[in-house]
C-alpha cells in the first residue's frame, strides 16, 4: 500500500473517530470557556450568541481581586495531593497483601472494603461531622483529607488489586528467593511493573478529591475551604454569577488536564519498562 493511502486510511479509521469523541467530550467545556470571556450582556439572549461580541478578562480579574478563589485553589491542591498520598500509601501495601498472600479473612476484608463504599455518603456525613468535631478536625486539612479517604482507600485497594493480579507471581517469588526482602521486592520489582495502574489510581483519587463537594462543604471552614465550595458561593439564592462560575470552572479543569498531559506518558512508560526487563 502506498504511504498516502495508509495515511488516509489511518485518518479515516482512527483520527476521525477520535476527533468525533473529542468534540463530544469538549463541546460543553469549550462553551464554558467562551462564556468565561464574554461580557455579561452576551449571556441571556436568544438566538444564542456563540462568539463573544468582545473578549473580556473581567471575570478572571474579579476572581483574582475580589474573591478568595486562588487561595481556595491552593487549598484544593493541598487537599487533593494529601488525599493521593494518604490513599496510596495505605492502599498499596493492603492491595499487595490481598493479591499475594492467602490468609484467614482475606475475602471478607476485600469484600468489606467494597461494601463500605456502597453506602450513600449523604447519610454518613452527619455522624462523621459529629466525630470530626470530637477529634477537633473540623476546618483542618487533615480532617478533609481523612474525609476523602472514605472513598479513596476502598477504591484504590480494589483497583490496585486487579493491577497486582495482572503481574505474574513468579516474578516476585524469584526475587524473594534471590534474597530480597518483601519490601525490597515490592519497591524494586512489583511497583515499577504496575506503575501505569498506580498512576491511574492516583489520577482517580486526585480528581475525585479535587471535585468533591459534600465532605469539603461540611468539614471545611474559611481556613481550608477548597475550590468546589468556594465555587458554590457564586451560586446564590437569587443570582448565578455565570461569568465567575465559568471562569472558576476553567481554572478548576486546568490542573487536572495538565497533570494528565504530563502523566499519560507514564501509562506507556510502565509498559516499556516491564517489557525491557522481561
Amino acid at each position, binding site marked *: 500500500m502506498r504511504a498516502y493511502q495508509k495515511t488516509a486510511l489511518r485518518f479515516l479509521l*482512527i483520527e476521525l473517530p*477520535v476527533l468525533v469523541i473529542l468534540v463530544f467530550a469538549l463541546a*460543553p467545556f469549550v462553551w464554558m470557556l467562551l462564556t468565561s470571556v464574554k461580557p455579561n450582556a452576551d449571556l441571556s439572549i436568544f438566538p444564542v450568541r456563540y462568539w463573544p461580541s468582545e473578549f473580556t478578562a473581567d471575570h478572571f480579574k474579579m476572581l483574582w481581586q475580589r474573591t478568595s478563589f486562588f487561595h481556595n485553589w491552593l487549598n484544593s491542591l493541598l487537599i487533593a495531593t494529601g488525599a493521593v498520598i494518604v490513599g496510596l500509601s495505605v492502599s498499596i501495601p493492603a492491595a499487595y497483601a490481598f493479591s499475594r498472600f492467602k490468609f484467614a479473612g482475606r*475475602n471478607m*476484608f*476485600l469484600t468489606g472494603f467494597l461494601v463500605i463504599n456502597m453506602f450513600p455518603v449523604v447519610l454518613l456525613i452527619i455522624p462523621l461531622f459529629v466525630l470530626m468535631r470530637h477529634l477537633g478536625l473540623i476546618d483542618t486539612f487533615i480532617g478533609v483529607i481523612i474525609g476523602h479517604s472514605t472513598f479513596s482507600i476502598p477504591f484504590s485497594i480494589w483497583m490496585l488489586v486487579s493491577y497486582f493480579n495482572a503481574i505474574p507471581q513468579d516474578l516476585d517469588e524469584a526475587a524473594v528467593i534471590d534474597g530480597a526482602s518483601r519490601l525490597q521486592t515490592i519497591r524494586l520489582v512489583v511497583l515499577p511493573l504496575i506503575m501505569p495502574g498506580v498512576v491511574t489510581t492516583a489520577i482517580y483519587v486526585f480528581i475525585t478529591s479535587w471535585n468533591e463537594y459534600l465532605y469539603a462543604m461540611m468539614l471545611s471552614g474559611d481556613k481550608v475551604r477548597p475550590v*468546589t465550595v468556594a465555587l458554590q458561593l457564586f451560586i446564590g439564592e437569587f443570582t448565578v454569577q455565570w461569568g465567575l462560575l465559568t471562569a472558576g470552572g476553567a481554572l478548576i479543569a486546568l490542573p487536572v488536564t495538565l497533570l494528565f498531559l504530563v502523566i499519560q506518558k507514564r501509562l506507556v512508560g510502565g509498559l516499556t519498562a516491564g517489557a525491557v526487563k522481561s
Partner: protein
Amino acid sequence: MHPMTRQKLLPYSFLLPALAITGVVIIYPVFQTLILSIQNYVLYAPDEARYIGLQNFQKLLKDEVFWISLSHSVIWVTSIVVLQLLLGLGSALLLNQSFWWRGVARALVIVPWALPSVIIGLIWTWIYDYNVGVLNDLLLRAHLIDQPVAWLSHPQTSFAAIMLTLVWQGFPFFAVMILAGLQTVPQELYEAARIDGATAFRQFWHVTLPSIAGIMATAVLLRIIWVANSLDIILVMTGGGPGYATYTLPLYAFLRAYSEMEFGYAAALALVMTLLLLGIVFLYVRRQAKELA
C-alpha cells in the same frame, strides 16, 4: 516472635493502616446509620427518637415513591454504565493506536471528568434550557426542530437528558482505566496471533478482551456503585422533577434526610440500596474467587 507467627501476621500488618483509617471514618458512621434505621429519628427532635424495630422498612415497602425510585435506579445504573463502558472502551482502543497528536488527545479526553459535578450540572442545565439553551438553538438553526423543546421539563425527556450528562461525565473514567489495562497486555501475544494469521477483530476478541477483562470487570463494579450513589447532578439539574420523573433511590433518601430531616427513614432507604448493591457485589466476588482458585 516465632517466625511462623510472624509470617502469618505479615499480611495483617500490611492491611493495618488501611483498616485503621476506614474503621474510624467509615465504619463508625455506618454503624450509627444502622442504628438510625431502626429508630424514628428526626434531626430536629432528637429527644423523641426511640427504637421502632423494622417499622421503617415496613413503611418503605408500602411507599409508592420508593418503588418509583427503585425502578428508576435500575434503569439509571444499567443504561449509564453500559453506555459509559462502550464509549470508554472505544475511546481507549482508539487512543491506544499511534498517531502524532495522541498525547494531546489522551489528555483532552479526560476533561469532562476533571470538572466538579456542580459545574457540570449547571452547564448542562443551561445547554438544555428552553429559553436560552444552546441545544435548542443548534437544532433550530439546523432545522431539525421548528419549536424549542423543554428537555428537562417533560417526564419523557428529562431522565434521558440527565443520563446523557452522566455518560458524558463518566466515560473518560473507563477510557483511562482501560487504556492503562491495555498497557499490561504482553506484545508477544499479538505477535503470536499475527503469525497465526489472526484478523484484527480476532486479535481483539481472543487477545485484547481476555487480557483486560479483569480490569474491566473491576471498573464496571466500581462504576456501578458510584453511579448508583450519585445524586449531585440530578439534584442540580431537576431536583428529582418533573414530578417523580428523575427520582432515584439515593436522591429520595437525600430528600427525606435533608428536607424532612427524617434520618431514621432515610437511613432505612439507604440500607435497602446498599443491600441491593451487595447482591451485585456478591455475584462478582464469586466470579473472582473462581478465577483465583
